[in-house]
């Protein structure tokens, strides 16, 4: 799954996702990615977020919506991402998942839940700092 956030010079915000879902899924199963507020959420007056991971669990907590609303209330992207992850962790301590967050000033962060197979989460950032995309890593 790819989740993406784009914010232009004028503060216009968009987000999106694309995935082929869970391998060996029951036909008809849909995860979090295409569900607004779960796979991704964007509001140019607050920021955007996009999530990835165990969609059957994550979608029930609307992590992208929660992260954007926390940023609207003043949280920085890192705090917002972490809060969205810990909300899920309370019920599913070992869920596999991560989220990226960005606010309207272009500051960004990511958070993830430490789970078997996920101790660090890698994500890409493109901005004026560098001509090529920057690989970022966050510890789960």
């Amino acid at each position, binding site marked *: 799954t790819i989740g993406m956030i*784009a914010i*232009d010079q004028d503060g216009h915000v968009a987000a999106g996702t*694309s*995935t082929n879902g869970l*391998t060996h899924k029951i*036909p008809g199963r*849909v995860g979090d990615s295409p569900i607004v507020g779960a796979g991704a959420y964007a509001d*140019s007056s607050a920021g955007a977020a996009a999530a990835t991971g165990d969609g059957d669990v994550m979608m029930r907590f609307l992590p992208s919506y929660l992260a954007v609303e926390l940023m609207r209330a003043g949280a920085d992207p890192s705090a917002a991402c972490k809060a969205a992850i810990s909300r899920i962790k309370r019920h599913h301590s070992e869920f596999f998942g991560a989220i990226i967050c960005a606010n309207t000033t272009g500051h960004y962060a*990511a958070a993830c839940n430490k789970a078997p197979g996920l101790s660090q989460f890698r*994500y890409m950032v493109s901005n004026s700092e560098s001509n090529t995309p920057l690989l970022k890593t966050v510890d789960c």
Partner: protein
Amino acid sequence: REALPVVINTWPFRNASAAAWSVLQSGGSVLDAVEEGCARCEIEQCDGSVGYGGSPDETGETTLDAMIMNGDTMEVGAVADLRRIKNAIGVARAVMERTDHTLLVGESASVFAENMGFIAEDLTTNKSVNIFSQWLKGNCQPNYHKNVFPDPSKSCGPYKPRVTLEQRRRQDNMLSHD
């Protein structure tokens, strides 16, 4: 706003980030950037979890999900369980721009996409066929069934509902009266 413009994406999908960034740099909109970046992953089948030829379901079919959201207008276009169409994010954008709906799913979403000019094609590849056949040979493990028989942790379906302990308790209670 010194940190703008910016593109962020999950996982180390470098080409997707570069594709979206170049759209912004050449004056494209943030919607264009997100669509282009996600579409790049659909074409490149990023780590097998995006695009055609990945994650076959229990019938061996690959289906796609995507969404796109405009933070200025709060408009959303999304598709789920999309069949036979590779450019899922493109169809999601068409849902946003050519309908008053938010989410289209399944076979009907594919018909909508074909009507909008998207090409219908097989989303299966040798790789997804191989993943599927290995799974069948391995007694369909893992699978996402529970409270059914035959035991899903040991065998393939078809599955039928198993009487749960709760149901048995309820039955016993009903039958166990003076």
